[in-house]
């Protein structure tokens, strides 16, 4: 038995149909997390309602109207779960920071999962084993499998990241586990100004304090998603890289 306190933060945006299976995969882990925090990033569909249904939260009286509580706590299959409703204009960095603040004091390892992704039942256990056996490792990423809309699957090979490789190309894998102490050492947890490259910016800083460990196994599944690098995303990546390089002196 490990002595870590693991909090998994799930970000959801219009994930009404898939948020339940994401949380199901977390509570079904061989080493379940000590807490799950689900932050709804201002979804316009029924994502937050699904979350409240899972925890059995009832609408409350708020400013003369009956509405779901902006923050709710409960247990789902024995695991404490906190739900958080963020305003639609909140950036991913702000949502992640707000979600992490809820369990910051007691947590030693933060896990992150995007809505729609599903953790392999061993993911948390294997990642904790890596972090415990390698004190220099600050975060654990893994390979993953993409589920196509037609039902097929494709194994994706992840990468072993270090400072130089990250300067060559950004990483967007947000399904990882990160040591809290390393986040403290590397500076602020997430940049609240960023819209797209939040994890890339964090990993650039983490790569300077330790090793981003890559497990060569497919440890999570995620639905097919066409990621388009718009000009805004490209500009943000360049800005992040320059800012981190400047900070590094």
């Amino acid at each position, binding site marked *: 038995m490990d002595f870590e306190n693991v909090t998994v933060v799930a970000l959801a945006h219009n994930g009404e149909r898939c948020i339940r299976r994401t949380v199901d995969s977390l509570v079904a882990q061989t080493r379940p997390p000590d807490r799950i925090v689900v932050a709804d990033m201002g979804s316009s569909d029924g994502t937050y309602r699904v979350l409240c249904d899972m925890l059995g939260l009832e609408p409350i009286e708020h400013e003369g109207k009956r509405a779901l509580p902006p923050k709710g706590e409960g247990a789902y299959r024995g695991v404490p779960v906190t739900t958080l409703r963020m305003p639609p204009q909140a950036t991913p960095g702000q949502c992640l920071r707000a979600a992490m603040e809820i369990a910051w004091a007691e947590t030693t390892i933060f896990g992150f999962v995007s809505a729609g992704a599903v953790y392999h039942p061993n993911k948390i256990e294997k990642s904790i084993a890596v972090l415990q056996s390698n004190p*220099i490792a600050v975060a654990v990423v893994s390979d993953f499998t993409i589920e196509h809309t037609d039902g097929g699957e494709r194994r994706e090979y*992840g990468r072993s990241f*270090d400072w*130089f490789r990250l300067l060559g190309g950004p990483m967007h894998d947000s399904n990882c586990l990160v040591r809290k102490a390393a986040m403290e050492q590397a500076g602020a947890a997430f940049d609240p100004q960023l819209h797209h490259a939040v994890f890339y910016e964090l990993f650039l800083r983490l790569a300077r304090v330790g*090793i981003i460990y890559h497990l060569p196994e497919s440890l999570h599944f995620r639905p097919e998603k066409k990621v388009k690098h718009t000009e805004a995303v490209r500009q943000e990546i360049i800005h992040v890289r320059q800012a981190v390089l400047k900070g590094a002196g």
Partner: protein
Amino acid sequence: MAGKNAKAKAQRERRREAARRRSEARAVLAGVGLDLDDDLVGIGVVFEHLGPSQAVLFGVNAINDLCRNVVGVDIALFVEKQMRPSVVPSCPVFGVEQMASWKKPLIATSTITCLAALQTQAPIVAHYVLYPDFADRTDLSIEEIRRAFCDPRVRVFVRSQDYVALLRNEFGIEAHPVPDFQITEMLKVVLPELRR
């Protein structure tokens, strides 16, 4: 008479101890595919840098273990970018430009270091694939990438069994699975071949 017996007994003891040590050393060297009568073997390992990275964590720790346990293998590190090491190596470290005159086997830790190793006179280049980085190397032509995997001097080792199938499909080669840069497993393949 008693003194003569004691002397002979001591001599027998010494011989027995020498035989025990010899068999111990032979077993250690057999672990890397060498024999006690072989000459000292030099191996070079090429890293992109020695800063925090998984290749350095696995590689330098494995090399330090080898330096501690095996006497017959002489190891040198070659580094492309000089920076403070995240794991301190217990063997000499040179810049990659000093690799030009190297005539002994080399272990490359990425596609780009493998191509650099192929420019030397190394008889064998072991290419350790920590992860399939060739997919990211948009700066290299397909011929160059193929060379890093299919050159007759290259022996490919991969970290995961899954990568064996990937490289078979991609380049039509058979790679040896060696988890987490276990350098002794690589030497078991490279050194006997070098002796032949």
